[in-house]
């Protein structure tokens, strides 16, 4: 049976893992390669490394960090941040990533989705969407770029559909309203996107407990869920988390 995925996310700045609260406050949480391996050993189904400063400071992705992290990592490994062209993506794949996550650059030039997909396959392209609900709630949730700093005027569901049509392999949906708050995912928004597209949707933002994961899989219809802060500082590990989510009736990869 196909299981739901728990994805450990490492937000990286200046070669160190950090975690923001609602995209702003930053706390140091360690070395990316070391944390990635620790998460994989502890049962994370995938690892995502996001260079959170790359876009607005105009830096390239930290290829060395990617290379070092990928060296002995034998679970799927996604890298995002600062990928603006098919060449940028190629360099990240060459360093050992299996998938790239593109966000601002896909909005600026949607053709990029297909360009990367045609060389590396659709499965290698994740379109990340940072979303914030509007006054009307989920139906007018809007897409933000540049680390949540800039509104685009695009509706989340519409952009997700377009990304799929242009050849995205997966959607990584982050709710800026719930991110870092540990009060649970935005299940309603996740479900709206998941029902609008055929490709897998990864829910992100707001994980605080195993119950939150079970909720976003069962009622949010997410195919995978991303967690960052919940794993750092020894809050819990994937194995313990997955055992609890599994007990709530969600298929998980266990033992792992």
């Amino acid at each position: 049976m196909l299981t739901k995925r728990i994805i450990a996310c490492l937000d990286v700045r200046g070669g160190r893992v950090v975690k923001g609260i609602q995209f702003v406050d930053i706390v140091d949480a360690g070395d990316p390669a070391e944390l990635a391996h620790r998460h994989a050993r502890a049962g994370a189904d995938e690892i995502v490394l996001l260079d959170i400063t790359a876009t607005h400071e105009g830096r390239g992705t930290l290829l060395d960090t990617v290379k070092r992290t990928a060296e002995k990592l034998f679970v799927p490994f996604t890298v995002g941040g600062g990928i603006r062209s098919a060449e940028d993506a190629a360099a990240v794949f060459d360093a050992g990533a299996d998938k790239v996550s593109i966000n601002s650059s896909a909005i600026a030039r949607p053709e990029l989705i297909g360009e990367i997909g045609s060389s590396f396959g659709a499965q290698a392209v994740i379109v990340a969407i940072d979303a914030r609900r509007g006054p009307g709630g989920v139906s007018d949730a809007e897409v933000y770029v540049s680390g949540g700093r800039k509104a685009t005027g695009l509706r989340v569901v519409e952009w997700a559909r377009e990304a799929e049509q242009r050849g995205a392999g997966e959607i990584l949906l982050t709710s800026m309203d719930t991110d870092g708050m540990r009060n649970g995912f935005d299940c309603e928004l996740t479900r709206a996107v998941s029902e609008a597209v055929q490709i897998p949707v990864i829910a992100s933002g707001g994980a605080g407990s195993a119950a939150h994961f079970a909720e976003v899989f069962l009622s949010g219809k997410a195919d995978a869920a991303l967690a960052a802060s919940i794993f750092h500082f020894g809050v819990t590990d994937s194995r313990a988390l997955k055992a609890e989510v599994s007990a709530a009736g969600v298929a998980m990869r266990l033992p792992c």
Partner: protein
Amino acid sequence: MIAVIDYKAGNLTSVVKALRFLGADDVVVTQSAEEVLRADKIVLPGVGHFQSTQLLEDLGLTQATREGVAKGTPFLGICVGLQWLYEGSTEAPDTKGLGHFSGQCERFPAVFEGAELKSPHVGWNSLEEVRGDSRLLQGVGPGSFVYYTHSWRAPVSADTAAATLYGGAFTGAVERGNVMGVQFHPEKSAETGLKVLKNFLEL
């Protein structure tokens, strides 16, 4: 020498990295038919479109593989590399597969048993009905999880070494003699995947 065939379909880094991690020090990424013929083992990775396997025919690699396999060289196809071992795929009807195994690869149905089926099939799914005599899957028990990402799949037949369930059963691993294939990505399937690659290296 292990020849990893490069036919410009996706990223070979992970496969090569995993083989080297397991101690294979003579891994060559190649497009040369000569090298494939000389190889002690042949690996055909690949993600992406079935049509990209046309390059194998164009470069003489299909013929080299046929000859290599005929003289007993162990062969492992991964993902599209497995699909290529069959007669063909509806993804690219004009491109022929090796035809070593009978049957056509087909797309996952949009609807299965009355429910909408998401495609591609992405994530960790379990291996079922693992054949006891499979050399590739030795030590891999039924229920072991492996990582998949694909939209086309090979049918279950007598050569199927393990099946996986998604929109019905499909071939997760195939094996007959020295010719083997896996639809999942062993290089991304943690301990189980490394075990499969190790089994192949030890043939």
